């Protein structure tokens, strides 16, 4: 694996705030790499440092083998798709797209050809003569993408580029972005706070919290084997089983998380499969969510588990709130052991 982008001990302080703290990342050539985290977690600051808009307080940034830490943005072979697109309002679409070639003095014919090509890549053939003000949000987003891609950069940085689009358009663009990335073979570094977006497009995801990376992993690993409680909670939803509950309910030390869709609500006293635990409780709340229904089950002894059930239209009995005893079936293989937990976990583990 050759690293296209490397950060070494990358740190950024804004006054007292440690926006990015001692970050080491290696992003591979041709990878779709996402930086996922809540707002203020430092992901955008990392992107802006790679682009050259912010100077790191400490640390280095390498593109390939070249140290670009001290280079201005216009000397870095990276391009950015901005959150607000930053389309030049005084130029028509084709002039926007060919801007990068124009400042690099590519001759007029060649740059027109490449700009048209880039517009075709983002499915905006024939839009060259339009003014940015005549475009919809989704179209502007594509122009911004074409304007960056036309330069064939080593790395494309995308700063929450789908944030301003409505849900349906966002889903479509997610698929398209992934396809475009595969076609052009450029390394994409994608910043988002939307875990679904990150999971659906990325080869690997780095989960940020408070300026630090909690975990770097493939989407499957991230979901199936979250490295920390934060990741388990931020990527998908999960039930947290604390040390006390674990000892009482599961009979094992340590802290665990378990995904709602791995749990089933069954009648009290149903037969137990191998490796399966039955936790008796009562359904306290039922939430219908379209494809799934969530049931909140209060277990004997106080803990509450969220159980998710697909609405497959089958013959299963409806979930309803009642005082009748039911049980939550939980397979031991579904338990996610949380590392890096509290002191108590370490003592008992």
């Amino acid at each position, binding site marked *: 694996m050759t690293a296209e982008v490397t950060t070494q001990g990358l740190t950024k302080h804004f006054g007292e705030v440690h926006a990015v703290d001692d970050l080491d990342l290696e992003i591979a050539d041709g990878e779709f790499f996402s930086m996922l985290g809540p707002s203020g977690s430092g992901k955008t600051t990392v992107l802006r440092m790679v682009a050259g808009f912010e100077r790191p307080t400490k640390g280095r940034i390498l593109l390939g083998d070249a140290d670009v830490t001290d280079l201005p943005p216009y000397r870095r072979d990276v391009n950015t798709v901005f959150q607000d697109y930053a389309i030049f309002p005084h130029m028509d679409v084709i002039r926007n797209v060919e801007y*990068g070639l124009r400042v690099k003095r590519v001759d007029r014919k060649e740059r027109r050809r490449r700009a048209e090509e880039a517009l075709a890549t983002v499915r905006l053939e024939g839009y060259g003569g339009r003014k940015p003000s005549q475009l919809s949000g989704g179209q502007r987003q594509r122009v911004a993408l074409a304007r960056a891609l036309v330069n064939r950069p080593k790395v494309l940085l995308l700063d929450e580029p789908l944030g301003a689009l409505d849900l349906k358009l966002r889903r479509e663009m997610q698929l398209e972005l992934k396809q475009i990335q595969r076609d052009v073979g450029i390394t994409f570094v994608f910043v988002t706070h939307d875990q679904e977006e990150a999971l659906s497009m990325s080869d690997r995801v780095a989960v940020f919290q408070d300026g630090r990376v909690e975990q770097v992993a493939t989407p499957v690993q991230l979901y199936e084997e979250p490295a920390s409680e934060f990741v388990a909670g931020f990527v998908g939803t999960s039930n947290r089983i604390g040390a006390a509950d674990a000892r009482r309910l599961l009979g094992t030390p340590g802290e665990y998380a378990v995904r709602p869709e791995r749990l089933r609500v069954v009648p009290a006293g149903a037969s137990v499969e191998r490796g399966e635990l039955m936790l008796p409780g009562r359904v306290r709340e039922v939430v219908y969510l379209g494809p799934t229904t969530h049931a909140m089950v209060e277990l004997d002894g106080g803990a509450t588990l969220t159980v998710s059930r697909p609405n497959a239209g089958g013959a299963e009995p409806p979930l309803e709130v009642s005082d009748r005893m039911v049980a939550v079936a939980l397979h031991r293989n579904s338990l996610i052991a949380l590392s890096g937990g509290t002191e108590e976990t370490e003592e008992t583990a």
Partner: protein
Amino acid sequence: MTIDRRLKAVLRVFTGLVLVIVYTPLVLVFVNSFNVDRTFTWPPPGYTLDWWDLAIHSSGARDALVTSIEVALLATAIALVLGTLAGLALRRTRFFGRNVVSLLIILPIALPGIVTGIALNNAFRTMLGLELGFFTIVVAHATFCIVTVFNNVQARVQRLGPSLEQASADLGAGPFKTFRLVTFPMLRSALLAGALLAFGLSFDEIVVTTFTAGPDIQTLPIWIFQNLFRPNQAPVVNVVAAVLVLLSAVPIYLAQRLSGDVVNTSAAP
């Protein structure tokens, strides 16, 4: 919004009244420029084109007009360069005392002209040992002309935000290319509006000019002021004033149209 009919009528009357109060004297200037009587009796006993003829051939008025235009053009040019630089510097960087500097740049337009005049007069003559003349007027006017350009640039830069310039840098343009291809086109209408206001300010300035002009040089406002009470010149002054009314309407009209312009539609491809 719907307005009560009676209220509408009242508003109309007031608007009309204000406009009448403001514009009647100006119309009077026009009428009097054709008044046969040298002391402007009302109603005019008769009309003549003599004064217009006299004014066109008055070398004093003509020289003063040329001086005024030259001063205004130069002061505006200085204001454009310095005002743009200051506007960009104060909105694109952060430094200690930024707000103080901003205040200091804007202050000259609020200072009483008489104070600016005396201060500059002193500084030019005693400290710098300069002869008062054309150059000193230009510098004096530039001090307050900068403000209009600075304010326009600053507001525009603020509204634009940094992302267009960052996008340009990201696409490989160095600072000068970015300024030429992105920043300047986005500022163009703001600069034009600021320049027209600056020109207008300089063109009719009299107080500061009085203190910074030497004895051998006259701008048009000073010429008017000195000739108004000379019986022979008074009718000519009226003609000059009438011309000035027409001339000053042009830049103000243009400035108003330009500053209302939206960025999106302002620049040609």
